[in-house]
């Protein structure tokens, strides 16, 4: 007990209790300071159904943008690292260096990466407009703001998936390919009929963890597009943070209800992850 005690204590105090407390206060009118008062489903009614409420608009805009972000980035964060891993798999010259460079941005903090990229997209001094003939206001107009968010997210976060795919590709038996060659299968046929089915588990795993990660989108939208233009990239976590910890009185009850809704979306995906994890245990 002395061995597991410290971790269990930390786990209970900083993870388990806050989770249940978090669900509870979504049914209260808490302001972070006074004793929370139970208000039943009022917060949920307000954000889900009351079209007049600002919080209704916030939830719908925020959740909508979060879903858009997931839909735009997840496919790119699967396909691009898969292509890189496939190219690295033929072991070209300098493979180790290529691999190291693609992985590198994962290790940098989001705020440093966003400072670098907001300058990359800078209208007057940024290199991107220097090389393009047309000079759009990348971060201030759509669809450019979304493109910028996706580009940055892919640049920052594909390293992990790439390494997982590399390991997966190494595990595919060469005999399958040889047998397929004898049967006269082409390159693409081999890819779709041998490679993809063989790495199915790893693909599923990366899709799940990438989706969960992208649902927690916050830093990119906050620092790169600042939620704009006109709230078109304001994501739900930004509203949650503002309502609970922003200037003015805290509306932690409403913010918690929003967090629970976002949490339910994430949990739907996590359930799949849990079963994947158990299978291998």
């Amino acid at each position: 007990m002395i061995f597991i005690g410290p971790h269990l204590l930390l786990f209970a105090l900083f993870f388990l209790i806050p989770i249940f407390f978090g669900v509870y206060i979504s049914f209260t009118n808490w302001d972070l300071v006074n004793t929370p008062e139970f208000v039943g489903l009022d917060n949920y009614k307000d954000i889900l159904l009351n079209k007049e409420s600002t919080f209704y608009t916030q939830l719908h805009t925020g959740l909508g943008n979060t879903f858009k972000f997931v839909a735009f980035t997840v496919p790119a964060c699967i396909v691009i690292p898969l292509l890189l891993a496939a190219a690295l798999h033929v072991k070209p010259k300098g493979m180790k260096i290529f691999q190291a460079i693609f992985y590198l941005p994962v290790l940098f903090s989001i705020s440093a990466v966003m400072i670098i990229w907001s300058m990359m997209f800078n209208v007057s001094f940024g290199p991107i407009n220097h090389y393009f003939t047309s000079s759009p206001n990348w971060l201030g107009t759509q669809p450019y703001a979304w493109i910028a968010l996706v580009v940055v997210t892919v640049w920052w976060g594909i390293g992990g998936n790439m390494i997982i795919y590399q390991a997966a590709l190494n595990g595919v038996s060469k005999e399958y390919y040889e047998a397929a060659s004898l049967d006269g299968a082409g390159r693409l046929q081999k890819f779709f009929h041998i490679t993809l089915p063989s790495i199915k588990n790893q693909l599923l795993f990366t899709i799940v963890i990438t989706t969960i990660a992208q649902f927690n989108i916050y830093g990119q939208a906050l620092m790169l597009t600042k939620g704009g233009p006109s709230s078109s990239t304001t994501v739900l976590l930004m509203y949650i943070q503002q309502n609970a910890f922003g200037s003015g009185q805290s509306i932690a009850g409403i913010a918690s209800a929003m967090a629970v809704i976002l949490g339910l979306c994430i949990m739907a995906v996590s359930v799949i992850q849990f079963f994947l994890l158990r299978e291998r245990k």
Partner: protein
Amino acid sequence: MKKVNISTLISFIFLLCMTLIWIFPLAWSLFTSFKDEIDIQTFGFTMLPIHWVIANYQDVLFNNTSAPVAKWFMNSMIISVTQTILVLVVVSMAAYGYTRLRFKGRDWLFSFLLATMMFPAVVNLIPLYKIVDTLGWVNSYWAAIVPGAAAVFNVFLVRQFMIGIPIELDESARIDGANDFQIYTKVTLPLIKPVLTVVALFTFTSSWNDFLWPSIVFNDIDKMPITPGLQLLQGMYVTDIGHAMAAAIIAIVPTFILYLFTQRYFLQSMSLSSGVKG
């Protein structure tokens, strides 16, 4: 033979193009951090500095009391190093408990811990703040150090590794009269060094890079770590590109250096974690 060469060539060209895209932002920001601010305003985009200066670094490190980057850097160092040590101790002890000690409901308890990993962390953000506030930890290093040690995943990783170590080693130590604590320190810890290295590297980098949580629990500028600090700084250096870049470079140097020396572990650990999970 010819076919192999063509696919190698195509791969090589593809990777080379992608690498250029990946390196460009880093190279440009590094060079820009050494540019004279006036040159940037006058000449617009250039790759290399026209005059090489280190003024940007001097300014952001020491001459700005509303964005004290040197202080933030030290705060981050203290937080990340302390959290890494705390996590190593807590996690290795817990993993030892879940694999080597026999007590009622052990495996049930561990399955329960695993199942809670499904709970989305976003829900505990607001109550966690209240708990940390009640402990009097707002604006203190403890707020950034301690809650992170509650994570279950590291325990899972170390436990998986320990299951692979034959228990006979423990038993022979026990026959020699060692107690649990001695077995843990003398037998187990040396054997699980590889997985602890991985845990240490990941804890350090994620602690260094943590953004949302520290930006909530720190509002005192002098106490802040560098990652949330940079967000404040972004608002101050909107047009001073050289200064902003210098600050960003300072913030990424520690994890970059760590990666240079321990790349092998980072890459191994990725396949390790997908191996157990996927």
